[in-house]
């Protein structure tokens, strides 16, 4: 049992902070971070930013050496996520590709797919989106209806996707489509070129970030067989692995903790931190973020020891959601003026991030179902 960082880990964090200090513009919070990582302005900025991360070897350090990484341990990957997410994710959607899309290709891709995609992802100049959810398939993802039927040495894909973040600028989509039947066994993953004929992207105005949500319409989109990841029908297994890590892929605990600390600084500056009730609520919010932090660390601990993931991931995810809400509620209660558009961009960003925290990457009630089933072993209703 050890709750401290090793010297290399501390150095790595310091290196990341120095990198950020050097490479973020002065108006980063007010002009970029506040808009969310999917805002066109941030996505444009991220191209240059990611190139610099590549130059300094920071983008895919956690990847295996054979794919251009440095085999950095999972703890360093967590530190990277903490430092990036808590300042508004300047990598934009590149974090999805380096966190789980790239690794899914490493695990399931053909030599050609690896050769083609991994280098591009590691170079930071290709954008990916994640096409899972559909209008009638949210939490019940396995009920998705988009179809891929064999045609001309490939597949014809028809259907639609919704809530797809980053779709407006994405080059590729990790897409789920049904190659047969109506169950999870008929789901297949495609690495779809977003410039394919028949792909239409429509933005949906949302609150979680500028231009975050999109609908993707797929009308007779032809994809070559080489775009299929893994076997037909293996999609569910691939996605389960991908999503498992992703539930704690964004270090929300760190962002929430920093938001509480910043709110305290803000309230002190306004002379409003002396009331005992304000102090009490601030610490309660911070305690929620620290609870989430340790539960997330518990998940990474297993990963670092090469143990298979458990329902602990869902436990950590629920705690993360609670920490996001606790920080946001503290801000709403004691610094409401700070969340006006001309208010404090750090506090504004936190309350907006917290909005979607219980829905994105798997709704929290689904996480509670998983905890009940896989951790408490409670019986099913049937």
């Amino acid at each position, binding site marked *: 049992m050890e709750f401290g960082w090793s010297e290399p880990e501390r150095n790595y964090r310091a290196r990341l902070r120095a990198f950020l200090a050097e490479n973020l513009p002065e108006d980063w919070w007010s002009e970029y971070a506040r808009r969310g990582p999917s805002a066109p302005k941030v996505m444009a900025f991220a191209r240059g930013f990611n190139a610099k991360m590549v130059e300094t070897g920071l983008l895919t350090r956690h990847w295996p050496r054979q794919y251009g990484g440095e085999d950095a341990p999972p703890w360093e990957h967590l530190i990277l996520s903490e430092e990036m997410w808590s300042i508004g994710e300047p990598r934009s959607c590149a974090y999805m590709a380096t966190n789980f899309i790239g690794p899914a290709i490493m695990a399931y891709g053909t030599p050609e797919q690896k050769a083609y995609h991994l280098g591009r992802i590691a170079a930071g100049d290709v954008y990916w989106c994640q096409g899972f959810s559909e209008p009638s398939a949210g939490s019940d993802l396995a009920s998705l209806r988009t179809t891929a039927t064999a045609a001309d040495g490939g597949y014809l894909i028809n259907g639609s996707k919704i809530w797809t973040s980053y779709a407006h600028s994405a080059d590729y989509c990790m897409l789920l489509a049904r190659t047969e039947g109506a169950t999870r066994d008929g789901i297949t993953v495609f690495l779809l070129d977003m410039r394919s004929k028949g792909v239409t992207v429509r933005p949906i105005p949302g609150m979680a970030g500028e231009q975050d949500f999109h609908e993707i319409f797929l009308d007779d989109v032809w994809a070559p067989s080489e775009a299929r990841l893994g076997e037909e029908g293996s999609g569910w297994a691939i996605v389960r692995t991908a999503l498992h890590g992703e539930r704690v892929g964004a270090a929300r605990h760190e962002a929430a903790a920093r938001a509480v600390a910043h709110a305290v600084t803000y309230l002190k500056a306004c002379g409003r931190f002396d009331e005992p009730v304000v102090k*009490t609520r601030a610490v309660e919010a911070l305690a929620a973020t620290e609870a989430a932090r*340790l539960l997330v*660390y518990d998940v990474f601990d297993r990963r670092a020891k090469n143990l298979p993931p458990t329902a602990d991931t869902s436990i950590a995810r629920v705690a993360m959601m609670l920490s996001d809400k606790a920080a946001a509620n503290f801000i709403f209660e004691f610094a409401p003026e700070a969340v006006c558009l001309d208010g404090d961009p750090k506090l504004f960003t936190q309350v907006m991030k917290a909005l979607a925290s219980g829905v994105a990457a798997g709704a929290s009630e689904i996480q509670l179902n998983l905890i009940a089933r896989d951790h*408490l072993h*409670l019986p099913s*209703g049937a």
Partner: protein
Amino acid sequence: MDTQPTPEQQALLDAVAPMLAKAAAPPKEGLVYDYDQDLDDDLVASGFHDLARTEGYGLADAALIVELVSGALKVVEAGATMLVAPGLDLDLPHPIALVADARRPARFLSVARSAIVLDDGGAVALELQPGQTETADGIFAYPMGRFTSPVTPTEGVRLSRPMVRKLMSIWRLSLALEAAGAMRGALDFTVEYVKTRRQFNRAIGSYQALQHRLAERTVAAKATRLLALQAAWSGDPAHAALAATYAQGAIPAVIHDCQQFNGANGVTYEHPLHYWTFRLAALQGELGGVSAQAQAAAELLWGQDESP
């Protein structure tokens, strides 16, 4: 970073587990909760009380044991003896009662042979004389006691200011560990109960309304344990105050849900749930309760003045 016990720590936990298994449901008369002398003797005999002061071990190792013991059905005093006394380097006869207000009942005071008592001037540590304390019946599922006469400021050894600060920190650590153990005990018991109790031709544990609440309480119980263990590992008073804040904040919902899901059984003395829930209820108000811990944490984290 490593959130799991080391193999050596696990060996210690494995050595304590059989002692706890021996501790069956304690007989109880009226509202006096018995002290488990057998378990206490086992812990003394195996040297666990001195663990934190044993070469090669420290407070973090002792903390793991305190948390484990606090989940048992039967109750012994462990936190003050295994954490507070070694942390302050005090030699006090076991059991030790921690008394926040000498005019009010305190946990373990009826069976304690020594006490650390907070007062206006800070804190005093004293050995107790026969007749100096008496049993204070109540619902708190600890042997509760009170002083039979006022504690005079000249009794015992007065702790220095830095020692008082340390005392508060380890006291908070201990209460968080004890709460983590009791939450675990109450939840484990309740989860098993809802798997077997059937209504409407289904195990009640199959209802999502119950599942979600038990899952949420599990999140809180696991977090309480990790926060407390982190505080033990770091020795940081801010960590201890945060852990205690979180623990005391989480207690009411754990009590409520466990009480609720055990139905009327949970409102009887024959059903053991109350051993954990009434202990949690006692811990909920220890040292002034959640807002007192939170304000102490706020001072430690963001304050100018030296914190209590």
